[in-house]
Each structure stands twice: as structure tokens, then as C-alpha cells.
């Protein structure tokens, strides 16, 4: 990726740190992030002025207002993905993840783990990033892109288009993608793309420890049911306002 801004980078690292550690003094933050105190103070003032953090006594915390911003993250997609991922996780007894595209990578938006305890589980936490060509989730998303999108997405990856192209074509024919041990050793992933009115929005994947990945047919059936339900609900107008934004944003002239 291109050059990044060091200051903005520190501000974002500070937010992540603060969310993980809870209320902290500037001194504690400076020490944990290994940046000097003057810089820390300045970053805190910047975050405070925009209400990203609050101050109580001598400590700073993430502002409750950030809840509203979190609710604005893919507002139509996230609640339905959360609910349907959880249902699929219960039905399959395996971990389910939903990934969204970020350039030539994919990021976990939602992870659902079945409630049954004490078992070997494949885990893939929210916010985790991987190359789009590296997992079943990524290949599934690529298989649902049109040629323009595909070209633009793969431009920077330096991938051998012949090899990836073949796998994408395969996923396109099948309607889903399977990989084993490519991203995480010992984990098999089976993934299918999910499309909204304006194209692919992400993919849903079931992650299975490879040692018990012997009934993919049944998993595949359950997975496709979930995808059908997600795509159906994505085409319904939203109850809580998200769809308007999602639809108007995408339809107002895709570049």
C-alpha cells in the first residue's frame, strides 16, 4: 500500500489501545504505545475535540458516542449477517465468518462460533485481514465480480492471472470455493459470495478443522441456504434506515 500518515496512524493505534485497556491516563497510554508524552497529549486533544474519547478525572476512555459510529458500519448488512451467521454456526456446529473486500484484501466483518463448548474450533476474529487470493472467502468474492472489478482488484497483487483465473473460473462454475490449509494450517474453508442489488458485498464461509471436514455436501447445502436468505433480505428495504444510504451511495454513479 502507499505511504501512510504517521500522526493519523498513531491516533488510530491510540484508539485501539484505549478500547483494549479501558480508562487510561496519558502517561499510561504514552508508555504502552511508546510515544512521547507531548505527542500523546496532542493526539488525545485531537480525539477529544471530535468526541472520539472522553475524559473522566485524569483518565481517558472511548467516547460512548463511538457506539453511533459503530452502528453506521454497513448498517444494512451487519445486523442480518450477524443473525444469519449465528444460525448457520448452530446448524453446522462450525465457525462461520463473513468477510468484506478492502482493495485486494478481505477483512472479517463478523464471526459466529457455535455455542457447543469444548471442541476443536477454527477461529478467525473480526478485523483479521488476508489476501483476497488466499482463502475460500476471497476466491468466492472474486468469482462474483465482473471483469472490470476483477481487473482492478487484482492489478496490484502480482498474482499469476493464469493460476488465479483458473481457480476463480472454477468457483464461478460451482457457485462456491473450497480451500484447505492455505490461510490457516489444518483449516478447511467453504465459502460462497453474497451479492446485493449493486454487486458483490462479501462472502460467507464455514471454517472446519480439516480433520473432520468429511461432509462438505451437507455443509454446502446449509451454506447456500444462508446465502439465499442473505441475498433475499439485502433486497428488502431496510427497517432502520441503512438501505437508503447503501443504495443511494452505490447507485449515484459507480466510477
Amino acid at each position, binding site marked *: *500500500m*502507499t*505511504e*501512510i*500518515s504517521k500522526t*493519523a*496512524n498513531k*491516533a*488510530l*493505534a491510540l484508539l*485501539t489501545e484505549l*478500547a483494549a485497556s479501558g480508562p487510561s491516563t496519558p502517561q499510561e497510554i504514552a508508555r504502552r504505545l511508546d510515544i512521547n508524552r507531548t505527542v500523546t497529549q*496532542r*493526539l488525545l*486533544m*485531537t*480525539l*477529544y*475535540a*471530535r*468526541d472520539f474519547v472522553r475524559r473522566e478525572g485524569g483518565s481517558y476512555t*472511548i467516547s*460512548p458516542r*463511538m*457506539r*453511533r*459510529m*459503530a452502528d*453506521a*458500519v*454497513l448498517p444494512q448488512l*451487519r*445486523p442480518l449477517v*450477524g*443473525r444469519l451467521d449465528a444460525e448457520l454456526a448452530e446448524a453446522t456446529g462450525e465457525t462461520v465468518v463473513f468477510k*468484506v*473486500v*478492502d*482493495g485486494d484484501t478481505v*477483512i472479517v*466483518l463478523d464471526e459466529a462460533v457455535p455455542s457447543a463448548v469444548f471442541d476443536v474450533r477454527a477461529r478467525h476474529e*473480526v*478485523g483479521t*485481514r488476508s489476501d483476497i487470493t488466499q482463502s475460500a472467502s476471497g476466491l468466492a468474492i472474486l468469482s462474483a*465480480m465482473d471483469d472490470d*472489478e476483477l481487473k*482492478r482488484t487484482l492489478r496490484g497483487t502480482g498474482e499469476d492471472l493464469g493460476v488465479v483465473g483458473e481457480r476463480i473460473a472454477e468457483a464461478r462454475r460451482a457457485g462456491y470455493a473450497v480451500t484447505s490449509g492455505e490461510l490457516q494450517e489444518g483449516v478447511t474453508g467453504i465459502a460462497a459470495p453474497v451479492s446485493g442489488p449493486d*454487486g*458483490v458485498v462479501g462472502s460467507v464461509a464455514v471454517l472446519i478443522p480439516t480433520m473432520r471436514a468429511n461432509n462438505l455436501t451437507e455443509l454446502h447445502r446449509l451454506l447456500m441456504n444462508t446465502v439465499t436468505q442473505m441475498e433475499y433480505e439485502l433486497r*428488502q*428495504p*431496510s*427497517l*432502520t*434506515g441503512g438501505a437508503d*444510504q*447503501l443504495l443511494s*451511495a*452505490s447507485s449515484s454513479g*459507480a466510477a
Partner: protein
Amino acid sequence: MVGVTVETAQTADYALRVLLELEAHDGQTMSELADKIDVGRSVVHRIIATLRVHAAVTRDPRGRYWLGPMLVLLARGLQHELATVGDGALAELAELCQETAIISVPEGDQSVVVACALGHTGALRVEHEVGFRQPLSRGASSLAILAYQRHPAISRLLQPEDLGVLEEIRAQGYAQTTGQIRSHMVALAAPILDEDGWAIGSVALIAPETRAELLESSKASLLSTARVIADGYAQRKNAQPEGRSSK
């Protein structure tokens, strides 16, 4: 603050402003964002690259930018704002009426409990908990929200013959159900409305059926609690429209 000091904090501020812009209108292109923030393309380019490293924004295949999963993680440990604003009033209501009181908010086709106060100290009471979900079409706390939704899409959650229920709720200003979520329970719920009159949540009192009549007498308190919370929320929201001065 002068010179270098201002300049360095400013880059971080651009990043925050990009997030606020996307919160107001998600799915913008890089040049749209550059115009809104009023900085050059190369600066926005760098800011967005930084935000993407942290998964605070993502880029879709069509070249548009969206708020990212990192923001969800930031808010994970946070109370809902209505809970922060309403906790005090909710506890008073529960105490006054001697019943369990909850605040719920809509999330997709469901409602989620974000605050809960137990008022009854006796043996028979309703136990409820934060995080409990139910369909938006069932239970007083859900229906009070559903009756005041901006979007006409609500019709798909209800049978046409049930739409009258919502009209009735709007006519009287509250919802009342018996045994819709759990048998032997009655619930009374009032919407928490924004300035335009749409529901951002609801307050509900839930009681065992045997105390249904007592619950009847709590209507006025319930409605005034909903108004207090709505006012508190509106004040809070209007307090920081465009950043604020640091004291």
C-alpha cells in the same frame, strides 16, 4: 498552539473527519472526500491508506470507501448511548413502579435490550438481561418501536391484518401486550422518539400477570420516563454537532 504542533495534530484530525464524513454518508469516492475535507488528493490518499491499515475504512471493488470493522471493535465494550443517557431515569421508574424496566433499541429486524433495572424486591419478579433479542414484530417493547419507524418496510414483518395494532399503538402512545414473549407476563412500552417523531428505542415495564392491574396505573410514569430519556438523548446529540472546544 503554533507551527509544527498544530500541523501534526491536523493530520490526525483529517483522519477523524474522513470517518465523520463517511458516518454521515457512507460509500464515497476519494475525490468526494477530498472536497468535503477540503484538502488535496495526495493528503486524502495518505489519510485513507492509513485508515485502511487499521481497517477503519474499506475500499470496495467500485472504488468507494466505507466505514470498517475496526469501529465495531472500538465500540464493543461500550454501553449503548440510550443506556448511558437513560440509566438513571430507568432505575427511578423501576423503583417507583416496583417492576422490571428495560430500554430496547432496534437492530435490523430485531430489538435488543440495552439497559435493565429491577424494581421489585419480592420473590416474584421478571428477570431480564442486557443483550436479549427478540423480533421487532413481537412484544410491547418491540411494537412500540415498530409503530414509529420511518420506513414503510414494516409491512413485511406483520400480517396485513396485524397492521391495525400499530395504528392503535400510535393512537394511544404506548404498546401493551400479554404473554407474547413469555407466558404469564404483561408488558407496557412507550417509544423514545427523536426530534422528528421516529422511534430510536423504547422503555418498557414488564410484570407478572398477577400484577397486571398495578401496571395499568404506571402508564403516566412510563410515558414521562420515555420523554425524559428522549430529551436527554437529543441534548447530548446536539451538544457536539461539529466537534467541540476542549476545556
